[in-house]
């Protein structure tokens, strides 16, 4: 998705835009009421999940439905550590490490599978992890879940803290995504998505790259899970190992544009705003509405919003339409 691979990444416009967004986010955090604050935090969390998923599902093209597995692992790792008295920041780091290790293990097993089988494998992992959490009472408290120590401070202060924490995570994840997209590593992921044989042929260490992407993605998702767990102070298996999450995230990214840098953010924003502010009134129809959105996006705009609205600019920059003679000489 690069018009000119050698163009500078950090431009004045982009810096200004970033500062503007940061300003809005922070101002909102301090002025919104509790309900909107909560929605804003949920939006941030979804943005992190979408950005992280995009690395494996968008850049690399491996359709992972395992988001819920990593989310749950992070939530439980963070929750268990906090329960054991570990300070917040360390618990989160521990959760991120757990996510990374889990991804390393899972990746070594699943990344050799192609397309369909990889997708099925990742779904199976979510199911297995949920049942493990349900049944391993010694570690996870079983189906009744675990309580996590609440932070000191007024509900409002705590709410703002988690809001800012999530958005800080968004900033970090976004910066990481952009850095990857413009790096050799990101280039290799794009090659892997388009043609794995050719990727081998040009000297890309394909398996290693796939694992790296998987680990980075898993780590970030787990971290989001840990922050979520600390925030809600109570988690249970069917809440954090929820297969619906594994479907919503790819759908959001697809809405925005899988494989683009801004796509996950835009998709998450639109979807979550609609979900939290509009459909919350139609709770019975939530899944049907998600279904309709998915169908609509697939039929009407599978390439996502970013590409659709960039199409004009894109064709000017890259694809000059070749002559009818077929661009031959």
């Amino acid at each position, binding site marked *: 998705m690069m018009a000119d691979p050698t163009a500078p990444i950090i431009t004045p416009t982009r810096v200004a835009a970033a500062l503007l967004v940061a300003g809005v986010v922070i101002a909102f955090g301090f002025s919104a009421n509790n309900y909107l604050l909560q929605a804003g935090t949920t939006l941030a969390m979804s943005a992190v999940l979408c950005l992280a998923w995009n690395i494996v599902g968008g850049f690399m093209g491996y359709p992972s439905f395992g988001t819920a597995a990593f989310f749950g692992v992070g939530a439980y790792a963070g929750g268990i550590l906090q329960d054991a008295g570990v300070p917040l920041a360390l618990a989160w780091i521990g959760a991120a490490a757990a996510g990374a290790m889990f991804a390393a293990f899972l990746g070594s097993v699943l990344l050799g599978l192609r397309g369909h089988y990889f997708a099925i494998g990742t779904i199976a992992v979510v199911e297995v992890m949920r049942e493990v959490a349900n049944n391993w009472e010694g570690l996870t408290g079983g189906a009744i879940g675990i309580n996590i120590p609440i932070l000191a401070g007024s509900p409002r202060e705590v709410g703002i803290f988690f809001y800012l924490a999530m958005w800080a995570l968004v900033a970090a994840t976004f910066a990481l995504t952009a850095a990857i997209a413009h790096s*050799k590593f990101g280039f290799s992921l*794009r090659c892997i998505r388009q043609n794995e044989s050719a990727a*081998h042929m*040009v*000297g890309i260490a394909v398996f290693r790259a796939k694992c790296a992407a998987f680990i980075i993605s898993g780590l970030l998702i787990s971290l989001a899970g840990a922050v979520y767990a600390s925030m809600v102070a109570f988690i249970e298996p069917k809440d954090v190992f929820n297969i619906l999450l594994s479907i919503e995230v790819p759908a959001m990214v697809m809405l925005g544009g899988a494989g683009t840098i801004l796509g996950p953010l835009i998709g998450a924003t639109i979807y979550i705003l609609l979900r939290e502010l509009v459909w919350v009134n139609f709770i019975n129809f939530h899944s049907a509405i998600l279904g309709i959105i998915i169908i609509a996006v697939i039929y009407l705009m599978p390439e996502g919003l970013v590409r659709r609205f960039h199409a004009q600019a894109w064709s000017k920059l890259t694809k000059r339409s*070749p002559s009818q003679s077929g661009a031959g000489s």
Partner: protein
Amino acid sequence: MTDPTLQLEGLTRRFGGVTAVDNISLSIPKGDIVGLVGPNGAGKTTLVNLVTGFLPKSSGRVLFEGREISHLPPHLIARSGIARTFQIVQPFAEMTVLENVMAGALFAGQGGTIRQASDKARHYLEFVGLDRFSNYSASDLSLANRKRLELAKSLAMEPRLLFLDEVNAGLNTSELDNALDLIRKISSMGVTIVIIEHVLRIVLSLVKRLIVLHHGAMLSDGEPSAVLKDPAVVTAYLGTKFSKRHQAESEHQREKLQQSLERGQGPA
């Protein structure tokens, strides 16, 4: 004395009940252009797949510039200095022409930054004559140009050994002449080249050495005119009956052989 660029010792590949590559041993010195020919299904592409690490071997060794590479994964073999084109071109379809060649420059050869790879890519695109298509999507190119793109991508890897697998299939006469010129230019840069072709006429204009494969085994290896007179080679291409009836050397026989091979015929 420098090591030969490529040495194969008893290279074999078996799967199911089929022996696709049968105990091949050969040695190719630096800078040579060698033609690897044989009827369809003779095992030529399989051989390349074995050398470049895309297929596991059943037995045998592969040495590149004296170092054994038999057990290296494909990407390390690529980084050692071996490149190949694919019979059915394998571009990165969603990337631009420039990006495709950059892919070759980024990871193999000396690597480097994205900026450096971009400069190198432009250089090689100029070399093959595709520079004005730099910003086109790779999937928008004609077949002939896609083959050139594949070539540019391989060159960007700065290989010392290059396998060209049927790089001329589907080209018309003028495209063919351009392609042959390019190959000569590449050879003059010092790259050792192995050309796989089944249309003999093309190869004969380029190479001083011909290796003939049939049913996975090496039939003949040597100077083209000698190889073409070899009865075993004639049998392979034209059939036993023909060979028995025309055992005696004759201009007529050689002409017929040349013509058949030009038309790409031969026992399936």
